[in-house]
């Protein structure tokens, strides 16, 4: 029986429900010292003076790292990693020092005794799409062009009987994985070990080796478990450099460094706010003649980041006249990064609400409107889709949800409505190598992959078992360690497809060489490098999300009693972990829709609600009924496994579905996230 497709419990489940799975801070080392970061309290300028006398005098303080007083390191592409080399301050909250002490209490106490003086330069932290200094980045982070244009969108808008021209905005969101970023670092015998909370051990190794001018052989990165990442642990952040600086200053002494929750609002990235000028043009039947999205987001002076919010508009719907663009505002703020479904997640908010607005204007069902505008081929590239089952998702979702009888209603004091939106996320593969070894009746599969809660510990053995045609129980798996072959970062929903493909290749090579009756110690590697089929096909996963929203008629309190998604995401390796991925994404989408907003105070350049009391995320009471389904999709083109990623698509479209449902319930159209009651209240019937 095939192991792929089986409902297999998590291999790491026992360790996680008992708390015995060890995360980065918890690495089993003796005699650890504790490192606490010091952060700039200005948004731009230079550190002019530092007084560490009092702090250093505290018994138990081992060392204090300050700008210019640490070893010289190398500049790499990510300029933010050039830490503590000079006293320049590029944003408020930037690392300008660190204290290392025998206990965390002493380290925190000492940190409070270090005093900085600054030369303060004027800063600019005010985000607005109307600024005159917007600029066009060279390319998007995905490698796609910054702008696209086909036909004449302006002419289409002038000629069309029905148009929508609206501006939609998404708020700044912070990834906030439950496990704060942490590193335990040990420099010993000319070698560095980092237990680091990361989405990619090999990426951390490569970068840290470059920063410190080490051979990659001298650096080992270990990360068996990650307490969530959602993009914020996709690339090394400056604190890893600090932990390494501290470890090298104190050879033989393991250094534990964990960010505080507040520090995570400055140091490990966030989804920047986006403004999306959206235009739709349609004929009297609702066939789109034009679609356009112009996106603006903020980026940081120190490192550029473009949120590719225009990407999904390029692919979703057919229309002869199309345009997308991306512009940036450079500010003295912390550096943005990927957050779950970068580009698609915010970028499907504007267009999917706009489609709802168009459906309303035309008096047609929003599902029918989407079906009417299904493209034959990818409108952007002209390539055929390897598979595209958006319509099937919409139809099945409509059935399961009970879309047909959707008239808005009043239930006591509550106004009840329903909404729908589409989801999309590209299906890519990256590069990876896997090794398979045979030992005493067991196959040991090793790959430097990561499990952020995604299920890699469980699904990779399923793939290996089928590839080797042996029972699942005979497979052991090792991930999260650079002693295993190099694997790509867990990001962009590429993990299972990439690592699984590498395992597939390794298994084929293994069986070619050793047959099905190997000897102890037989071992083979296999790699996947270039995505095999993307040349010929546009490869995407699709989905449809349905929301029921209740709005209190007097207070405008908003509840989401029901969220239902149907996805078309290729072959599902493990329905149990897949369901968690989908519903988890949808729950985070609900959180984005109703709660999440980081408030930046332009006077100081920092996020003021930098904790979990004031940066609200969804709680259990917000998400009591989130349901995910998928259709059987056989995609022979996407990759040899027929697998598309599923970690991100669940968050795409959720916010639009909820906003559309709130409009259906109340008649009030909210175009800026989050959907809070103050925005609905003035318009309630």
């Amino acid at each position: 029986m095939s192991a792929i497709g089986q409902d297999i419990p998590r291999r790491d489940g026992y360790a996680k429900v008992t708390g015995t799975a060890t995360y980065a801070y918890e690495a089993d080392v003796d005699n650890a010292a504790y490192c606490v970061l010091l952060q700039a309290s200005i948004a731009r300028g230079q550190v002019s003076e530092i007084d560490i006398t009092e702090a250093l005098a505290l018994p138990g303080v081992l060392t204090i790292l300050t700008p210019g007083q640490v070893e010289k390191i190398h500049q790499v592409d990510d300029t933010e990693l050039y830490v503590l080399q000079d006293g320049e301050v590029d944003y408020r909250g930037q690392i300008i020092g660190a204290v290392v002490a025998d206990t965390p209490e002493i380290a925190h106490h000492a940190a409070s005794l270090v005093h900085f003086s600054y030369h303060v330069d004027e800063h600019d932290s005010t985000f607005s799409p109307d600024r005159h200094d917007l600029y066009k980045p060279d390319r998007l982070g995905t490698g796609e062009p910054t702008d696209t244009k086909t036909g004449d969108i302006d002419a289409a808008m002038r000629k069309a009987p029905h148009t929508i021209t609206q501006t939609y905005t998404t708020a700044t969101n912070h990834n906030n994985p439950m496990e704060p970023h942490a590193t335990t670092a040990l420099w010993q015998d000319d070698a560095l070990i980092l237990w680091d909370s990361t989405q990619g051990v090999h990426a951390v190794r490569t970068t840290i080796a470059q920063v410190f001018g080490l051979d990659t052989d001298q650096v080992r990165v270990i990360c068996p478990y990650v307490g969530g990442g959602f993009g914020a642990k996709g690339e090394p952040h400056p604190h890893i450099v600090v932990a390494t600086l501290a470890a090298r200053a104190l050879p033989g002494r393991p250094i534990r460094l964990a960010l505080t929750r507040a520090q995570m609002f400055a140091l490990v990235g966030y989804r920047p706010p986006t403004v999306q000028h959206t235009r739709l043009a349609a004929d009297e039947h609702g066939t789109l003649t034009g679609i356009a999205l112009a996106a603006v987001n903020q980026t940081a002076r120190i490192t550029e980041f473009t949120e590719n919010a225009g990407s999904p508009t390029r692919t979703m719907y057919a229309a002869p006249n199309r345009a997308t663009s991306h512009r940036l505002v450079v500010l003295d703020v912390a550096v943005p990064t990927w957050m779950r479904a970068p580009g698609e997640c915010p970028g499907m908010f504007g267009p999917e609400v706009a489609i709802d607005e168009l459906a309303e204007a035309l008096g047609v069902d929003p599902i029918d409107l989407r079906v009417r505008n299904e493209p034959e081929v990818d409108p952007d590239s002209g390539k055929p889709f390897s598979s595209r089952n958006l319509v099937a998702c919409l139809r099945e979702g409509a059935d399961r949800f009970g879309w047909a009888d959707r008239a808005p209603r009043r239930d006591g004091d509550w106004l009840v409505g329903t909404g729908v939106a589409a989801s999309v996320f590209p299906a890519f593969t990256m590069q990876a190598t896997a090794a398979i070894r045979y030992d005493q009746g067991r196959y040991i599969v090793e790959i430097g992959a990561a499990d952020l809660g995604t299920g890699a510990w469980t699904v990779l053995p399923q793939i290996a078992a089928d590839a080797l045609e042996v029972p699942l129980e005979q497979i052991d798996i090792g991930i999260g360690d650079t002693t295993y072959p190099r694997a790509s970062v867990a990001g962009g929903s590429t993990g299972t497809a990439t690592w699984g493909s590498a395992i597939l290749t390794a298994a084929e090579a293994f069986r070619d060489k050793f047959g099905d009756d190997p000897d102890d110690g037989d071992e083979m590697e296999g790699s996947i490098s270039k995505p095999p089929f993307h040349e010929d096909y546009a490869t995407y996963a699709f989905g449809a999300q349905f929301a029921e929203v209740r709005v209190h008629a007097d207070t405008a309190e908003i509840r989401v009693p029901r969220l239902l998604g149907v996805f078309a995401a290729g072959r599902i390796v493990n329905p149990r972990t897949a369901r968690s991925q989908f519903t988890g994404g949808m729950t985070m989408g609900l959180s984005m829709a109703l709660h999440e907003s980081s408030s930046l105070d332009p006077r100081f350049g920092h996020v003021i609600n930098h904790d979990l009391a004031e940066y609200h995320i969804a709680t259990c009471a917000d998400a009591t009924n989130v349901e995910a389904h998928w259709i059987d999709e056989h995609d022979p083109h996407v990759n040899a496994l027929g697998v598309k990623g599923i970690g991100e698509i669940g968050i795409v479209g959720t916010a639009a579905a909820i906003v559309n449902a709130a409009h259906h319930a109340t008649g009030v159209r909210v175009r800026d996230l989050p959907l809070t009651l103050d925005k609905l209240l003035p318009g309630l019937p």
Partner: protein
Amino acid sequence: MGLSGFRAEVGFRVDGEPHTLAVDTRSTVLDVLRDTLGNTSPKKGCDRGQCGACTVLLDGRRVLSCLVLAVTAGGKDILTAKGLAANGRLHPVQQAFLDNDALQCGYCTPGQVCSAVGALDEFADGKPSHAGDVTAEPELTRAEIAERISGNLCRCGAYTAIISAIEQAADA
């Protein structure tokens, strides 16, 4: 002020094991468990009483261990999710979390588990919650469970499954 100024001796039990140790008077139960005793089952998600990851059972009641100073825990019984699985046998709540895949990254999970155990005990004791009519006999509906477990954040969004797990454990 020297180190000695911040030291006090305290004794308590952790997962059934007695410990007597000199703790920093500024240390929380959470930090003593994790940094001194090496019991990293309770997690630190915020250190401010805002996330629930550090939840343990203190004399049978769920508490946020990041908000309890270790010096105040003298003579107490501290039970972590690790200790709930006595002799390698999962507590019914833990088994239910596994059965329902009510976890992903696992970082909030030990806290969720301890909190669920505490919540079910509170419910059994007739303690009301905000979810329903506080004067009526409480019923363990999904909304009731959700309300009682809402102090435990899960960024992976396992909530729907967490409610199902607690329902299952309550029926066991």
